[in-house]
Every structure is written in structure tokens, then in C-alpha cells.
């Protein structure tokens, strides 16, 4: 099998995802501010935060073990590795065997697991609380996400994201079948959970009642916190890229020139932009759910995904 995406392209896409990750967060924040009639910080604010954090010193809990220092490294590495599996500029399988959608979810789960471990290391109650809640929501999200992936993978006969997207690339919105709509609906339900946003989590506060992911970052500081922030920006854009690859696998045209690649990146940006608007609208118009309402909320997604899958295989 000759792949459509050689090593250079995969690395290029990877770098692009990491570089654009903070911009997505910035755009969502800006749009939320405007929707709430505030001026808001500029869209580049996440970059400034990162630059500042990398220049700062570190304060570490005196009870923390040797693992604590390494946690940000491992979390960032596994999140970015997940980014290598998302097709950005061009569809089709990579030129060498790499990983598929299950691997992508596995790498994100690894990052989450390590984050939770790090949160327990400092010995504060907030870290444990965040870790406990995050590890409660994650096992409920994972099966639904897997079902959504499977509902498209069954049609394409592969779980490799690039190949899956290329297989679906010919069909556009008008050619969507009921299973696609249901799968997409399930995905939209999951999206706030997977990106840590309202109504499941609130990324803006460090209030103990609301925090899941932020609670786990409390004890990190300086460059370590910078790595964790960059990892969560990357995680967000990777998740959006996964949605784009599963449901909008459309590129403007074929060809392999630089222009085609640029157009591919441009269309990826448009797809992510649409999802950014969706996330900002949801965040501005809903309140955060109680933690024990979240399973019911995810249950809606599960039913949608199950019916989508049933329609595919029956």
C-alpha cells in the first residue's frame, strides 16, 4: 500500500496542529467574550500565556515524587503523538504504518491517565478531586466515542483515520445518510466533554465545584504548567480534527502541489472554525451540568451512536 502522506507531510501537519492549538482556544475565548458583550483578550493571548510560563521558575510540592517532574513531559508527548494520527492537509493513509483512531483515543487516554497521576502526587485535596471527577467522566465518554468511530469505520472498512476520511471523501453533506446524522449528533454531544468545556467542565474557573481538568493542573507551575496547557490546547484541536476527519472529510481538490496542500490546510481551518463557533455558542448558552447529570447527558450521545451503528450493520 503506497500511502498518500509521506513522513515529511505527517511531521508538518503535526507541527501545524501544535502551533495552531492555542489559537483555537484563543478564538473560542474571544468569541465567548463577544457573545457576553465583553471586549475579551486578544486571540493570541494563549501564546502570550505560554511564553510567560516557559520563562518562569517552578514551585513544586515538597511531598511530590520524582514522577511529578516528568508528568508534563509525558502528557505533552502523548497528546502530540495523537496529533500525528489526524489528517490535516491531505486525506489518505500515511506512507508508513503509524496508528489508527483507536490508537488516537488510546494516546489521549494515556495523557489523561498521567495527568490524573500527577494530580494525586502533590497530596492536595483539589488535585485528587479533579482526578477523581475526570476519571469518572472519561470511562463514560470513551465507549461512546468508540461507537461513533466504529459507526463510520464499519462503512469504510478501516479504522485508520486518513484512509477512512479518504474513503468518505467523495460524499458530502447531501449524500449523508441517517447514520451519519446520528453519529454526528452523538459527536456533538461528546465534543464539550472531550474538550473539557461547558456543560461538562468549565475551563475558565478554578472553583472547586466546577473543576475537572483545571483541578488537576493546580499544582503544576512554570514551564511544567506551560507544557500541560499546551497539551490541553493540542488535545482540543486534535479532537476537532478527529471530528473533521470523521464527518467532513472534504478537500477542495486533489493534486499534490504546494497549492493543493495550502488549500487542504485552509479547508481544515474552515472546518475547525465551524466547530469553534459551535463550542463558543454552546458554552455561552448553557450552564454547567451537575457532575451526576453528566452520565445522563452522555447517555443521549450513547443512544445516538448506538442507533447510528445499528443502522450501519443491520
Amino acid at each position, binding site marked *: 500500500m503506497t500511502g498518500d502522506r509521506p513522513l515529511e507531510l505527517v511531521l508538518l501537519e503535526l507541527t501545524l496542529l501544535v502551533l495552531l492549538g492555542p489559537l483555537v482556544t484563543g478564538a473560542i475565548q474571544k468569541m465567548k467574550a463577544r457573545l457576553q458583550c465583553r471586549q475579551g483578550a486578544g486571540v493570541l493571548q494563549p501564546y502570550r500565556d505560554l511564553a510567560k510560563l516557559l*520563562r*518562569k*521558575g*517552578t*514551585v*513544586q*510540592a*515538597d*511531598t511530590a515524587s*520524582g*514522577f511529578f517532574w516528568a508528568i508534563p*513531559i*509525558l502528557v*505533552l*508527548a*502523548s497528546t502530540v*503523538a495523537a496529533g500525528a494520527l489526524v489528517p490535516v492537509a491531505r486525506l489518505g493513509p500515511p506512507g*508508513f*504504518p*503509524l*496508528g489508527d483512531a483507536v*490508537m488516537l483515543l*488510546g494516546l489521549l*487516554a*494515556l495523557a*489523561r*491517565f498521567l495527568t*490524573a*497521576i500527577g*494530580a*494525586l*502526587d502533590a*497530596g492536595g*485535596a483539589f*488535585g*485528587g*478531586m479533579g*482526578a*477523581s471527577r475526570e*476519571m*469518572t467522566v*472519561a*470511562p*463514560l465518554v470513551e465507549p461512546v466515542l*468508540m*461507537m461513533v468511530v*466504529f459507526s463510520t*469505520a*464499519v462503512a469504510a472498512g*478501516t*479504522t485508520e483515520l486518513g*484512509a477512512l476520511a479518504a474513503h468518505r471523501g467523495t460524499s458530502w453533506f447531501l449524500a449523508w445518510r441517517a447514520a451519519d446524522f446520528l453519529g454526528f449528533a452523538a459527536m456533538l454531544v461528546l465534543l464539550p466533554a472531550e474538550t473539557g468545556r461547558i456543560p461538562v467542565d468549565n475551563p475558565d474557573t478554578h472553583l472547586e465545584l466546577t473543576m475537572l481538568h483545571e483541578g488537576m493542573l493546580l499544582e503544576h507551575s*512554570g*514551564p511544567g504548567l506551560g*507544557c500541560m496547557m499546551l497539551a490541553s490546547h493540542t488535545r482540543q484541536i486534535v479532537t476537532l480534527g478527529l471530528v473533521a476527519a470523521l464527518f467532513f472529510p472534504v478537500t477542495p481538490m486533489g493534486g499534490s502541489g504546494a497549492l493543493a496542500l495550502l488549500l487542504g490546510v485552509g479547508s481544515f481551518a474552515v472546518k475547525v472554525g465551524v466547530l469553534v463557533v459551535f463550542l463558543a455558542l454552546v458554552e455561552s448558552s448553557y450552564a454547567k451540568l451537575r457532575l*451526576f447529570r453528566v*452520565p445522563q447527558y452522555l447517555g443521549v450521545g*450513547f443512544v445516538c451512536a*448506538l442507533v447510528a451503528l445499528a443502522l450501519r450493520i*443491520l
Partner: protein
Amino acid sequence: MDVGSGPSLIAVLYGAGALSALLARWSGPLAIRIGHLAALAGAVVAASVALDTLLGDPGRSIIEPLPVLFPFARLSLSIDGLSAYFLLVISLVAIAAAVYGPTYLRVYSPGAGSAAQGVQTFALNMFLASMSFLCCAGDALTFLFCWEGMTLASYVLVVSDHRSGDNERAGLLYLVMAHGGTALLLAAFLALTERAGAFDFASLRAAASSLDPATRTTLFFMALGGFAVKAGVVPLHVWLPRAHPAAPSHVSALMSGVMLKVAIYGILRFAFDLLAPVSGPLPPSWGWVVLFVGTTSAVLGVLYALQQHDLKRLLAFHSVENIGIILIGVGLAMILWRSDEASGALATLALTAALLHTANHAAFKGLLFLGAGSVLARTHVRNMEELGGLARRMPWTAGLFLLGAIAISALPPLNGFVSEWLTFQALLGGATRVHGPGGLVIVMSAAMLALTGGLAAACFAKAFGVTFLGRPRTLHAEHATEVPIPMIAGMAWLGSVCVALGVAPGYLVALLDAPTATLLHGPVASAVVTARGPLVLSTALTSSGETATSISMTVIAALLAGLAVAAWALRRGVGRAARRDAPTWTCGMSPSSRFDYTATAFAKPLRLVFEALYRPRRQVTRETAGTPYVLRRIHYAGEVVDLAETQVYHRVVEEVSALSQRIRARSTGSIYGYIGFVLGALFVALLLIGITYR
């Protein structure tokens, strides 16, 4: 070495270990050292025999006649691909246990009597020998003898620690349930041998080919029941979380990592080899039942594991989960197995996933039990609420335990992910192949598998975090020190197996060619899974095989390593400002271990989410000082009960005791009454025989 003499060499080594441990029981340390050394040698020889068989011609098998013990049966050993693979898995964990064991026994229970230590070592050798030869049995009698030997030897090990009275009760429960299972197995095997007129597997195979479908299915379910007790399948698992933690930790590693797999071996041997119809698929009910019980065990096993605070008990419940995952693969292979080529490839994929998970689970569960044993040896505490902060005190144990935790949570780049990935691919392939409601069942099974993986990660974040991180909660944990080198070496051996099987699983898949060829007679494992070279795992979900999925664990591991280097540079920061250590902010109070999140608290949200399955009991008593507004003390007691225990076992016990009460009312003490009962029973029995053999 001549492979033909391998089995006798294994027998000599294990036998020598057992005997010398008994003879040298006047000196405990000597008995332990000699016995474990012999066990190590036996395990190494067994591993090399297994490797030699697996790397040779796939269809080859060694048949070795045994001395004639009984006039009516010819006993023999037969090592084919399937036997050799399980022998390899057993030996891999046995090596670790033999290296780890002597030091563990010395550190954890220095005061144990030398006779007890001699008996322990004797039982360990017998346990290893009977498991190894069970997998190599060439006839039903040897199989059942080894099965019984395995049960008795492990019983001796379970009750060998007298310090806790619970161990004896756990041992009794184990013995009773195991023999219930053995009774079922005995009936299933004797039904076949009676038809065959001989005990060897070749005759049984011939006799099974002429069975009618109903008898075949009945025999299968009898054997499945017998094996399921040993494998700890829900709801037959209740003995497992009691007995496994009671044994010395290296024996727990063997019981959880290996002994359960012997039951899987039994299921595979009985269903695919002995009982399978000559032509055509297996009866559909077999595979669906196995898939269902596998899925149920996986989900319930991990859910109950989440609420355990005893480290070894938690690990034992995870064995229930992992046996479930293996059975998902086995059940799927049973469903998909057809004679035609394409489905055959999918069945091979499912069986490969199951067999690979067998080895993977042996490696990481062995590692985790040894890690828990190291904690136990240094702190004498199994309740993780009394631990904490061990990572600073036992860094090697902590690091290796974390490795095992990542592997068992099915996270890349370690081995647990590989077999779960293959299971997912097999389930997805099965869902596209089996249309209608069956496909939906398979899909639900995949969703449950994903749930299981997520819950396992949550459980091990808890287990690792509460045991090893934060502050020590008691003096036991405070004064813990790292364990001696032999114990670290035992763990490191299994840890390196986990890494090797995770980063380059293709080489183990190559060893699966022989077992898959033996059982399925279809395409072999490496032709299906590693068609693109040993470093790439690839599957085809469709029959054309055109759009295959390929992943490479090796490339992903390399990518992770490269990115970790880049992240390390970023982590060091730009300004290189100094690092300060400061106490954790605890809202102004002075930090103490009471601020650390406990295991109970960590698992609470999931306890509430899955309340229907847990039926948690919660008792809060408040001690007030005269007025309800001034609290002196709050006492909290919480417990999660096993649904199988309350809903199945307690009811059965109630029914049985009610029945015996009623019978007692009939027993008048008059001899004529009893003679009447005997005559009545005889009459009914004769009547039944008359009806059956009319």
C-alpha cells in the same frame, strides 16, 4: 538439547525441587533456596522446550508415552502448538516467581517455621509442575490428574499463611468451588471416554465426531461450567478475590497470571480440538454464550475492582475482568469460525487477540502482584488507605508498578493496548460479518470493552496514586524502604516482557502460528496480523482485504520517545529559573496526610454513577455533645457488596438450608423410615435408567 527429552527434564527438575524442599525442611532457608532454584531451572527448560516447539514446523507435535500406572489406560504427553504456547506463558511468569519468591518469603515472613517453608516450596513446585503438564497432557486421565494436583497444590499455598484466620475460610471456599467445577469436568470427560473406550485425546476426538448435536452441546456447556469456575468467570468468581490475595504474593502472581489461563487452555482444547464437528462451524450457541459471559465478566470485574481498597483484592478482581476480555476473543472466534477462507481470517484474528491477551495479562498481572507483594513485604499492609508516599521510598517498585498499571489499563505503547486493539478489530470485523441482531450484540460488546478499558484506567489511577503518591498515611508507609535486588529483578523481568510485547508484538504473533494452525486449521496468525512484517500489525475488516488498517507499535513508541525529548527541552523552560520546593497549599491549614484524597473518595463518583450495580451500604453515625449542633465525632462505614454473592449465593444457601430443615422434619429416627427412603431412591434411579436405555 533434544526436545524429546525436554518433558522428562522438566519433570525431573520440578520433582527434585519438590522433594528436596521436603527433605530439607529442617532448614527453612535452605529448603526455600533449593526448591526455588530447581523451579527456576524447570521453568527455563520448559520455556525453551515451548519455544523450540513453537518455532518449528507449525503442525508438529511431540508425543511422549508415560509409564503405565493403570492397567486400563495408556497415559501420554503430547505437546502441540497450543500446549507449547501455554507452557511458554506459564514458564515466563514462573521464572519471575522463582527469582522473586525466596527473598519475598524471607522479608515478609521471617518467623514462619522451617517446616511450613519447606511445605510451601514443595507445593510451589508441585503447582508449577501440574500446570505445565496439564497443558502437555495427551489423555483425559493425565489432564484430570494434573487439574486436581493444581487445585490441591494451590490450596496448600492459599492456606499456608496462618496469621490470618480469613485465609482458611478462603481456602475452604476455593476448595469447594474448585471441586464443583472438577465434578463437571469429570462428567464431561468420562462421557467422552465411555464412548471412546480409551482415554487418549485422539480416541476422544474420534468418538466426538459421531456425537449428535444435542449431546455435543451439553458436553460443551458442562466442560465450560467446569473451566469457568477455575477461570473465575462471573458469577462463579466469588472464590477468586478471596483466595488469590491470601496466597504469598509470588503465588498470587502465578494463580492470577497463569492458573486462570490454564482454564482458558482447557476451553480451547475441549471446544476447538476435541469436540468440534469434523465439518462445518461450531454450534452458534457456544460462541454467543462465551461472548456474553466474557463481556459480563469484563465489565463487572472492573466495576468491583474499582471499589476495592485492598491492593491484592483489587488486582484479583482485575483478573476477572481480563479473563472476560480473553473470553470475548474466544467467543468471537467460535462465532466466526467457518471453513471458508475470509471468515477463517477473522476467526484467526479473534483467537490471536485472545491468545495474545493471555500472555499479556500473565505478564502485567504477574508484575502488579509482585509489586503489591513488595509493598506488602515492607509495610505489612494491604489496605491502600493506610499507605501513600511510597514512590519516594520505593522508587523501583513504584516505577515498575506504574508500568504494569499502564499496561493493564490498555494504554499505548505497552502490551495491554496491543491485544485490546486486536480485540476491537476482531469485534468490528465480526460486526460487519454477522448481520442482524447478532451484529448489534457484538457492537455492544465492543462498547463494553471500551468502558472496561476506561474504568481500568480510573481504577489504576486510584491504586497507583493512593498507594504510591502523596504523603504516607501511617507509620507503616512512612518507614518503608526499597525491597532487595532479587525482588526488583523478578518484577523487572516481567516489566521488560510488558515493554517488549508492547513495542514489538509481531515477534510473539509469529509464535502464535502453531496454536492457531492447531485449533482453526485456517490461515495462521502471522499471515493475518503481521502480513506487512513483524513490526506492523495490520488487519482487514472486509473479505477483500483491500482497505486494511495498519498500525505500528514500534513507530508509535519511537514517536513518543522523540516527542518526549522535545517536550523535555520545553519543560526545562527558557529562563532556567531555579526550582523551589514548597508545601502544597491546603487553604491555610498545615498540610498533613489527611488532605490526600483517599481511595474511597476517589471512587465515590463512579460508585454513585453505577449505584444500581453496587448497591452500596453506607452507615453514618453522629456523636453529638448534648445538642445536635455540636458534633463530637462522625463515624462512617461504607461497603460495596458483590451482586453475585447477595443475589445468587446467599439465596442458594438460604434455599438449601430451608430444604434441609424440611428434610430434617421428616427424619424420625426410625430405621424403617430410612430403609423406605433408600428403597424409594433406588426405585427412582432404576426407573430413570430404564427410561434412558430403553
